[in-house]
């Protein structure tokens, strides 16, 4: 690899022990992937953040870097914490677990991290612009910033993300290079030219991740104008079931104004068709049981937006959450503060729901509650919940989730019934 003088200096240790170690790791990874050089990044995002997922090794590595005097050279945000950052006791977080999480927080404070604790740094003030090179982890965020914002990031991984923040650089390979950003597989939407319902976006994402593997897909035939929250949910599911880092959505992705632009010089290697049957079959796969008493309705993976919380309040329509069922919404501190100011927080609490801040169901110790069945509107959560929450899982629309919270079991929402094609009542309810 060709290194600049500044990079050579870091590698020699002129910038301190931590920068030396970080540079050694990045150069090694770069060499393995045939990178010719390092690319300057505008920001880093770190997934080596939540104790539940990084274990003791992760705590040791963070502390090692902090003890070496590491300081982040570029703005570096943090993925969610392993527990509600304020009400962790209320959410039954074991003390020994909390102590490890607090050690991680302390290490990052010393290193000058932006203490963002969210999977959505791009929704909370740290969005990269079109064409900007960044070094991010968090599979859902990487898929979103490449596919929707047109920023450039590989799926970096834990520890490497810390090294990127410390050096302000990452190996230049993969999605940093234009020639690797074109599509290879065509995904044709053949659902009669109709628009997808909000809940169908994560279903489509779940299917895409599983089907495309690391091949970049080009999705043609999405009708209407998907909302940011719908794309967020879709790409999070796609990046859970597969290694998807980027997908072209023709007419939405900045680099895919047309199908031809998305494919660039590449030849079409294969075509995948999405039919009503695809969506129906995929949705069934996203549930481990068909109907059950619901113990926890968990929303906000990725973190819920204020509009999504407003929608839940509207769907609740003043009805209380059933006894022996919990309704938890996971979100950022910014959105929680907004919900508080708007009186939504008080209303939700009054109806028996809770807002959990800066964490989520997958990376906090939800299993300490002993829930048996969890319901969610998140495709990503539906994939990971059986292992991470130790529950059965039912995927449904936000409306179905709210009905389940009110009734304590799966019930088809009255007002939504006629709007759910491909989702016959007999399907799951």
């Amino acid at each position, binding site marked *: 690899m060709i290194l600049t003088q500044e990079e050579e200096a870091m590698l020699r240790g002129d910038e301190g022990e931590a920068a030396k*170690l970080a540079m*050694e*790791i990045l150069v*090694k*990874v770069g060499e*393995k*992937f045939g990178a010719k050089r390092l690319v300057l990044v505008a920001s880093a995002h770190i*997934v*080596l953040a*939540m104790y539940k*997922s*990084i*274990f*003791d*090794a*992760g705590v*040791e*590595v963070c502390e*090692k870097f902090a003890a070496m005097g590491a300081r982040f050279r570029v703005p570096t945000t943090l993925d969610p914490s392993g527990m509600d950052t304020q009400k962790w006791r209320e959410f039954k977080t074991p003390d020994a677990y909390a102590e490890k999480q607090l050690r991680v927080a302390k290490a990052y404070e010393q290193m000058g991290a932006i203490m963002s604790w969210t999977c959505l740094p791009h929704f909370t003030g740290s969005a990269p612009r079109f064409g900007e090179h960044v070094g991010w*982890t*968090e*599979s859902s965020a*990487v898929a979103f910033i490449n596919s929707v914002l047109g920023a450039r990031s*590989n*799926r*970096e*991984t*834990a*520890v*490497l*993300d810390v090294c990127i923040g410390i050096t302000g650089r990452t190996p230049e390979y*993969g999605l940093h290079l234009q020639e690797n950003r074109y599509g290879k597989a065509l995904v044709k939407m053949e659902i009669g030219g109709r628009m997808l319902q909000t809940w169908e976006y994560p279903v489509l994402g779940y299917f895409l*991740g599983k089907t495309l*593997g*690391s091949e970049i897909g080009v999705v043609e035939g999405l009708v209407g104008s998907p909302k940011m929250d719908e794309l967020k949910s879709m790409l999070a599911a796609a*990046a*859970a*079931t*597969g*290694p998807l880092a980027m997908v072209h959505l023709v007419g939405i992705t900045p680099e895919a104004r047309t199908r031809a632009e998305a494919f660039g010089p590449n030849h079409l290697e294969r075509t995948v068709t999405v039919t009503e049957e695809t969506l129906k079959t995929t949705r069934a796969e996203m549930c*481990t049981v068909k109907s059950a008493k619901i113990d926890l309705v968990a929303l906000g993976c990725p973190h819920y937006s204020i509009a999504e919380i407003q929608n839940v309040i509207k769907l609740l329509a003043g009805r209380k959450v059933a006894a022996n069922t919990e309704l938890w919404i996971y979100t950022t501190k910014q959105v929680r503060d907004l919900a508080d100011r708007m009186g939504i927080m008080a209303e939700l609490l009054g109806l028996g729901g809770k807002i959990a801040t800066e964490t989520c169901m997958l990376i906090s110790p939800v299993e300490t509650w002993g829930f048996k069945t969890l319901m969610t509107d998140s495709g990503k959560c539906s*994939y*990971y919940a*059986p*292992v*991470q929450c130790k529950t059965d899982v039912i995927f449904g629309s936000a409306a179905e989730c709210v009905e389940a919270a009110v009734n304590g079991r799966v019930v088809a929402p009255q007002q939504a019934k006629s709007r759910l094609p491909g989702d016959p009542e007999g399907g799951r309810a």
Partner: protein
Amino acid sequence: MKTFKGKGVTDGKNAGPALVTGQMFGFWGGVDPATGIIIDQRHELYGQSIKGKVFVFPEGRGSTVGAAIILELARCGNAPAAIINHHTEGILAAGGILADKFYNTKLPIIDGLEIDPITEIKTGDWVEVDATAGFITVGK
């Protein structure tokens, strides 16, 4: 005993019995680092251990926290002996490099073999992976 060429992704040489799957594999939510046992109920290898195995799967998927799981596997002494992929993505490659750097654990990873490892290697075959030199040897 047959030898096949490939591309070494990390350094090191190791051997063990093969554990083969045609399904993608993600380490986070895929394996319990405290035991090395596969905990993803949706995976065909659910319940099997990757500890000391030459783990053969097409490619990684899912969470970018993957390298942390590989580190914890290394810290607990439950890492696979080696990994063989069709295509190794950055998460796994970095995991192997980091395991060596932080826990002195060699995790040889090789991809781009001249054969399809998923069909040519059977679970239980004794496989030696030399990722430094870029080849594998498959015995029966």
